[in-house]
């Protein structure tokens, strides 16, 4: 059997794939666009009805045969459908690719149907959503069996079986339960895979009889019924035997298979095992498999406009047409201020030559790097950042010199210089904490300032960068943690063979009674030090990044006197005991510092907190306060439950309160309300497509106006403090309204007519734009509400 032959096969019909296919069609080359789902642009298709789609980043021009502008889902899909017909794009839906073999010029693509295709070039634009898992039982494709839920209000008075005990399944079941009979089926014995808030709601719904559940239950088959009342018979194996449930509809939410494994099976390499790592690509989006190109989210570009631009460009590159990348003009402007640089390629060259850290990057990665970075041309004496600022961008020095002033342990200032070709600011970046020193331009200099997200992305996607960064940063960590005056040669000796180690929350660094293996420099996260007292574990101290633990046993030559546990995701550098002892022997100044720290520790042990306070600390750590920088606590022994904190928060922030006083846990009269803690490494920042979540110099984590309302941050926040809300015109009550008690009182959300207005993520910004500070604290009449950092409460609890 002859298999069909195409010049270009494009896999995945998201924005990137569609744009590539349209460009190929416009050129009149033989092409085929393959889509596994039953629709093109499946992800956008499954956005909720009327959802506004944004077109970030605004500065980037769109270059594609297809059009795209911010608008609602329906409009965008409609336009694309028209354009597909107009360009006569050759596409096929419901075609899942299972394998790609061969090489440039002769690829064989195998489909799930068993069919095989030939292609000279392949463009992979499959995104990162992965293929939705199906039930894999007979009847999985029946018409009333669905794998997503767009609008729960669409269904009324139906009997619906929801399969899947994860968040998606539970959320769907809850949303449907109001107006339908819902049976939630879970393969496992308990609903342990969903978020606590969902779990609580589910349990409440179950006790109220709104949802029925079946646990330890496996789907066997689904039959179509030819009767009036029910269309489906859902058959499952329960612990009691087979059960048939007649229903109108089955909704299965079983997650998706991440595409990485599939992509790797095509021969594409990823630089490391981190889940955020993206395949290494050439400037022309070509992967390590010649002829196989990757664009869009899979290549690390999650925004629609970027993907569409790349779809266009990749076709031009395949055809050998020179195209100026869409970001060229934008980048040219960035380099405009740099003396003696006239073009982007010159700038990129300078970057590569003067910053060895960036040398392992491809030109494509460098361009991406520059897109987010800013070039600062600074005169001598200019302050770049101050000690104790909460900024976490990373600086590379292209030209000139920079002086870093840090405060030594004895209060004296220590200054060291950093030359061109070096970098600084990595400590703030890695620790997520305040700057440990002040940086000042000591000559006229040219710097590249890179925001946290781009830098982290770089570290995950290019292993060479991480290694190079570690070489320098380990020494700096040691220097700043222990002794700022330690000579370079001793530093070299100390860090030889030292490797960064990572710990999850609750992991033990070392146990009381262990043999001392070395000194632990905490470069990220925080730990608690505890000891067994009368058979109970008592927390003695909380130690944050930028400090070290483990010196007690080293100095005293005894086994470990306490247990050290990670209080938040922690990264430490372990210095070998032998090396530390050697260096201590040779350097009296370091010896003195470690000794004084030892004595301090011995003294503070005498004031160990009571077991009651220790319980309170444990409770707070359990609430995730360990990774917070500033958390709102309420002393319930004083809180008169007037909710003035919420009301005034809403008043200060356009009518939406960013805190929920009543929710949250309480222990020993200390209540942790649902409110942002401004984590050291904010979970919400992890996956924000337009990079709209930032941390200000004072430490507040806030969401800026370019939020596209995707809801990723809401999902990623383990503390449930982010809401999606419609931004409305909000009028404050005038003084007369207050006196007369008229005008709308603001409170929680949901009072405003939302309609189809775009929703954006809303969270506490610690009132950073309001002089006087957080209104929740200021509005508390009895002083019950207060904000604290973990270091503070260790002090207070004692």
């Amino acid at each position: 059997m002859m298999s069909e032959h195409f010049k270009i096969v494009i896999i995945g019909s998201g924005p990137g794939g569609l744009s590539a296919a349209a460009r190929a069609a416009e050129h009149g080359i033989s092409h085929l666009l393959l889509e596994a789902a039953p629709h093109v642009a499946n992800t956008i298709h499954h956005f909720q009805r009327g959802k506004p789609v944004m077109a970030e980043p605004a500065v980037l021009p769109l270059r594609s045969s297809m059009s795209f502008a911010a608008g609602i889902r329906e409009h965008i899909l409609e336009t694309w459908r028209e354009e597909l017909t107009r360009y006569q794009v050759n596409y096929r839906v419901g075609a899942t690719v299972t394998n790609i073999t061969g090489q440039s010029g002769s690829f064989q693509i195998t489909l799930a149907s068993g069919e095989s295709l030939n292609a000279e070039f392949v463009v992979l634009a499959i995104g990162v959503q992965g293929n939705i898992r199906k039930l894999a039982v007979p009847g999985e494709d029946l018409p009333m069996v669905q794998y997503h839920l767009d609008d729960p209000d669409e269904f009324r008075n139906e009997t619906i079986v929801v399969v899947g005990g994860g968040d998606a399944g539970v959320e769907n079941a809850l949303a449907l339960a109001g107006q339908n009979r819902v049976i939630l089926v879970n393969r496992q014995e308990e609903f342990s895979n969903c978020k606590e808030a969902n779990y609580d709601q589910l349990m409440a719904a179950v006790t109220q009889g709104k949802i029925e559940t079946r646990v330890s239950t496996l789907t066997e088959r689904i039959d179509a019924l030819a009767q009036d009342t029910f269309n489906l018979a859902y058959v499952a194996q329960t612990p009691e035997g087979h059960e048939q449930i007649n229903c109108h509809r089955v909704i299965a939410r079983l997650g998706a298979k991440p595409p990485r494994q599939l992509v790797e099976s095509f021969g594409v390499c990823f630089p490391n095992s981190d889940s955020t790592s993206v395949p290494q690509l050439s400037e022309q989006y070509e992967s390590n498999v010649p002829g196989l190109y990757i664009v869009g989210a899979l290549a690390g570009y999650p925004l629609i406009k970027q993907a569409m631009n790349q779809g266009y460009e990749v076709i031009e590159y395949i055809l050998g047409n020179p195209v100026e990348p869409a970001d060229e003009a934008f980048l040219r402007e960035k380099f405009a201020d740099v003396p003696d640089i006239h073009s982007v390629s010159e700038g990129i060259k300078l970057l590569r030559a003067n910053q060895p850290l960036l040398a392992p990057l491809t030109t494509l990665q460098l361009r991406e790097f520059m897109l987010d970075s800013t070039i600062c041309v600074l005169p001598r004496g200019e302050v770049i950042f101050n000690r104790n600022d909460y900024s976490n961008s990373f600086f590379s020095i292209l030209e000139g010199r920079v002086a870093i002033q840090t405060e030594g342990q004895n209060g004296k200032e220590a200054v060291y210089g950093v030359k061109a070709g070096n970098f600084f600011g990595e400590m703030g970046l890695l620790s997520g904490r305040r700057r440990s020193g002040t940086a000042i331009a000591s000559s006229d200099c040219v710097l590249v300032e890179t925001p946290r997200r781009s830098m982290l992305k770089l570290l995950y996607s290019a292993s060479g960068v991480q290694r190079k960064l570690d070489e320098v940063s380990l020494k700096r960590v040691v220097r700043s943690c222990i002794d700022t005056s330690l000579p370079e040669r001793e530093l070299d000796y100390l860090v030889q063979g030292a490797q960064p180690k990572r710990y999850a929350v609750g992991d033990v660094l070392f146990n009381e009674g262990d043999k001392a293996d070395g000194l632990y420099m905490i470069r990220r996260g925080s730990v608690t030090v505890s000891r067994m007292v009368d058979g109970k574990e008592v927390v003695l101290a909380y130690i944050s990044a930028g400090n070290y633990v483990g010196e007690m046993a080293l100095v005293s030559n005894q086994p470990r006197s306490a247990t050290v546990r990670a209080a938040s995701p922690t990264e430490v550098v372990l210095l070998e005991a032998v090396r530390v002892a050697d260096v201590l022997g040779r350097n009296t100044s370091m010896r003195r510092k470690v000794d004084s720290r030892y004595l301090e520790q011995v003294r503070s042990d005498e004031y160990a907190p009571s077991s009651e306070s220790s319980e309170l600390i444990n409770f707070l750590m359990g609430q995730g306060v360990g990774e917070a920088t500033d958390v709102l606590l309420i002393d319930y022994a004083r809180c008169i439950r007037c909710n003035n904190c919420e009301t005034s928060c809403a008043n200060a922030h356009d009518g939406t309160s960013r805190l929920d006083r009543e929710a949250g846990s309480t222990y020993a009269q200390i209540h942790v309300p649902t409110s942002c803690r401004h984590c050291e490494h904010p979970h919400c920042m992890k996956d924000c497509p337009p990079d709209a979540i930032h941390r200000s110099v004072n430490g507040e984590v806030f969401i800026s106006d370019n939020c596209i309302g995707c809801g990723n941050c809401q999902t990623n926040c383990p503390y449930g403090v982010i809401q999606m809300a419609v931004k409305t015109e909000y009028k404050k009550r005038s003084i007369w309204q207050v006196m007369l008690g008229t005008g709308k009182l603001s409170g929680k959300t949901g009072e405003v007519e939302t309609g189809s207005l775009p929703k954006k993520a809303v969270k506490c910004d610690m009132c950073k734009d309001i002089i006087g500070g957080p209104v929740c604290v200021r509005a508390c009449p009895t002083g019950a509400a207060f904000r604290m950092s973990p270091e503070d409460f260790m002090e207070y609890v004692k």
Partner: protein
Amino acid sequence: MNMMQGATLLKYKNYRYLKATSLLMLLAITAYALIRPAGGESYGGTWLGYLLGIISTLIMFFLMWYGITKRRITGSPERRKLRTRVARSTEMADQARLERRKTRKKTRVLSGAMLQEWLSAHVYLGASLIVLVSLHTGFHFGLNVHTLAYVLMLLVISSGFYGLNVYLNYPRLITLNMTEDTLDNLLLKIAELDELAGTRALGLPDEVNTLIMKARRETRIGGTLFQQLSGDQKDCPTRIAVQQMLHLGAKYNQDDQPKIMRDLYSALLRKEKLVLRARTEIMLKARLECWLYLHAPLGIALLAALAAHIVSIFFYW
């Protein structure tokens, strides 16, 4: 456990307002004792009387302003917009950096618990009025608008003292009573127990069923203002049912009846506890709030009487 935090309402800033008002009262008392007006009799019409009157009136306005402040804590409208904008273009980035450098020089003034300070002052100044205004009257009372204003003031202040008392003592009790539960949660559990008891009692004689049904239908949580404030229901059917079950237990002891009776008894007992907790919660919250419904309207009434008092004294001239 107040160790986590600064001072309470009364101790705020090391008794700053206690000290200030004590000084004020001391001055007033000394002046009253030393300065004997011409006629030999002190009252509102002497210069000292006028002075005390004016001071007290100002204090009253200040106290009332607390009600406004409480609802208007939103901070200054001056917003540092620039800093929040995302620095995207180079120009904007430069601007933002400049701005950043400027603002970081300003140390952030965290005025802390602002409303707490207001309330602390409110409490002490309010209490000081008892002394100041009494001196202002020169202890002349009669059946007139002046004494009416004085009496109203005393009522406002006493309701305030009640409020202070509940504010200081009840929050702790609320937490102890509710732990991590919410009222809705308790009500849900109570409904479940009712359901359970109802089905369990079906096989038993009518006497028991009526008892259980009565406990289910007639137990009231909340109810009238008086019931809310007392945290009790007279002849609470659940309590009666628990007592009755003990007697009935001896009566119905055939076959599996004892077991069912035991189950019912334990369910009712659990329910009684929950009902008590729910009522306590409502009682505490009601007491925490109810006084405000006197304090504020009486305050307004005082304002009116005060206006009449001030206007009328002009006719004495």
